[in-house]
């Protein structure tokens, strides 16, 4: 009877292949999608985040007023309370501040600035961190030691202090006032500089695991140079955790920007972010004009909370061991 078993042709296909399904079918069948559908909170957070994004992008179409344009502001309309209060005036849904700026429009445009600083800051810190982490992890030795010691030193400075330092240095070098666009650049740079360590450490850790796997050995065997192996083989396999950090860091970057702006080293009043709006509103909190600070504050809180929830879910979904 054993002959019967042996008679199987050796080079015959193991099994008939089924064509790989298209990507969207694979996605709808994936564990991540299933875990997304299970969590109502995540769906709400995603909805809110997308809503904020959309509001920021479409601010020019939705907002009744362009708060960055001094010509549209009228001091006669200053300090109008929200529409539902007794003294409310249309179209100022959430009231106006002391310059006659519509709070609702200011929030939409401020959201735009906040998110822009957040995204650019994350992009900058992620690029810097991933690159340094890849190099440190792949080459090891002295290169690794130098990069990681710099990272250690960096970590001893709180992010906010680091950002204040960069901001101060740039301002003193540039001499006095910067244009709003330049300030935005400084913010992105200082936020990026204070958040890169986390990416570098995570990427380095993953790289050290991946580079000892045999698919990397196989790539080395065919004589591919190190940078090619790093970008083609290692990088795509270490990006999972980076996505999680980037999401959580987006919330952190927005908060940091808001803090800097609140402290007065961030966005100027001529191009306010959510943090700037809160700083402005802070001056009127005790004179009864609560809406000037409350609405930007609530917007910031909901935005950051939504992004954080999204990040938490992503971390759990990408790490099946935690479930």
């Amino acid at each position, binding site marked *: *009877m*054993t002959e*019967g*078993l*042996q*008679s*199987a042709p*050796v080079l*015959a296909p*193991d*099994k008939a292949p089924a064509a790989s399904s298209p990507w969207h079918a694979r996605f709808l069948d994936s564990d991540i999608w*299933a875990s997304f559908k299970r969590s109502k909170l995540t769906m709400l957070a995603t909805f809110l985040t997308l809503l904020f994004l959309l509001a920021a992008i479409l601010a020019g179409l939705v907002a009744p007023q362009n708060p960055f344009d001094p010509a549209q502001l009228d001091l006669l309309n200053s300090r109008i309370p929200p529409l539902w209060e007794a003294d409310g005036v249309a179209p100022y849904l959430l009231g106006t501040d002391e310059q006659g700026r519509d709070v609702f429009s200011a929030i939409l445009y401020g959201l735009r600035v906040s998110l822009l600083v957040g995204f650019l800051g994350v992009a900058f810190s992620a690029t810097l961190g991933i690159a340094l982490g890849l190099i440190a992890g792949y080459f090891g030795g002295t290169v690794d030691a130098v990069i990681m010691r710099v990272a250690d030193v960096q970590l001893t400075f709180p992010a906010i202090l680091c950002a204040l330092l960069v901001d101060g240095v740039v301002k003193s070098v540039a001499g006095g006032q910067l244009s709003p666009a330049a300030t935005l650049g400084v913010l992105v740079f200082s936020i990026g500089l204070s958040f890169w360590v986390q990416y570098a450490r995570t990427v380095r850790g993953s790289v050290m695991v991946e580079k000892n796997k045999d698919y990397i050995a196989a790539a080395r065997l065919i004589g591919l140079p190190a940078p090619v192996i790093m970008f083609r083989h290692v990088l795509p396999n270490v990006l999972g955790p980076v996505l999680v950090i980037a999401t959580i860091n987006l919330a952190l970057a927005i908060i940091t920007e808001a803090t800097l702006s609140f402290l007065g080293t961030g966005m100027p009043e001529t191009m306010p972010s959510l943090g700037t709006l809160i700083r402005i509103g802070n001056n009127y909190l005790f004179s009864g004009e609560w809406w000037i600070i409350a609405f930007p504050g609530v917007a910031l809180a909901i935005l950051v909370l939504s992004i954080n929830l999204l990040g938490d879910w992503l971390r759990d979904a990408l790490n099946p061991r935690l479930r």
Partner: protein
Amino acid sequence: MSQPVLSVRDLHVEFVTRRGVLKAIDGISFDIAKGEVLGVVGESGAGKSVTGSAVVGLIDPPGRIAGGEVILSGMRIDNLPPEELRRVRGKRIGMIFQDPLTSLNPLYRVSEQLVETIRTHTNLSSSAARKRAIDLLAEVGIPAPDRRIDSYPHEFSGGMRQRVVIALALCAEPELIIADEPTTALDVSVQAQIITLLKRLGRDHGTAIMLVTHDMGVIAETADRVAVMYAGRIAEIGPVRDVVQNPLHPYAKGLMGAIPSLEVETDRLVQIPGSMPRLSAIPTGCAFNPRCPFAFDRCRVERPEPIQRDLHRVACHLYDETTIRAEALA
């Protein structure tokens, strides 16, 4: 006396996933007698380790025992409340796993772990328990046990650690030992020593041993009887010599022929085409039918139940009376 130490009746284990219910164990029955070593062999995905866990009630959600009975010396244990089951497990069933470090606490000396276990299950004084622990270490072949007993687990080599685990499993003088791949992490030369030890212990203490492994060689050397598992079912069970040298089930035949031998030179190994099906795609009828060179229509629709043939029990339609009669007629 004729009562088996372990008796498993029509055991079912399921895993509930969002894609549906996966049947990891689909109705298996076997007995282990006092002093007997039952080898449970199979390839990955056959369900052999799940069987071991199910017997001691260590199936974690999303898995669950979906049916059947586990009877330990006449007492049904699969439906016990968790606390009672835990006591039974500690006192009457010893366990040995592939990685000795999962069974030993790295923070405590071996002496502390052994003495604590002995005192939980007996009413020995601590000095008597310590003496018993030293005796146990001597019995499992640890040199200078009176000195080594105060070492930490990491101070032992892999083979010695596995000996300590075996000593730990013996503490409560269990009726049954479940050894799940006990030698897989060890080198050949050390593996041979552990096999010899297990065999001797079963004989000396009359302990029933369920030896779960993928290594047919280990089974052939150690077991009295062997159960060959395939896709959550027992394909064939019988005395080890008969099953190894004269397997009946086509899968068992293929498996034996696939093992390269030290003794006999072969040009080609017997190969079974394909691989073990995933739990989510177990073929209807006989689970082995797509890989079986002898499969006929009945194999594709009707699941074969175990049939007694001489000393074997084999789950294959080829050995069914009707098939044999049909063949005789043809």
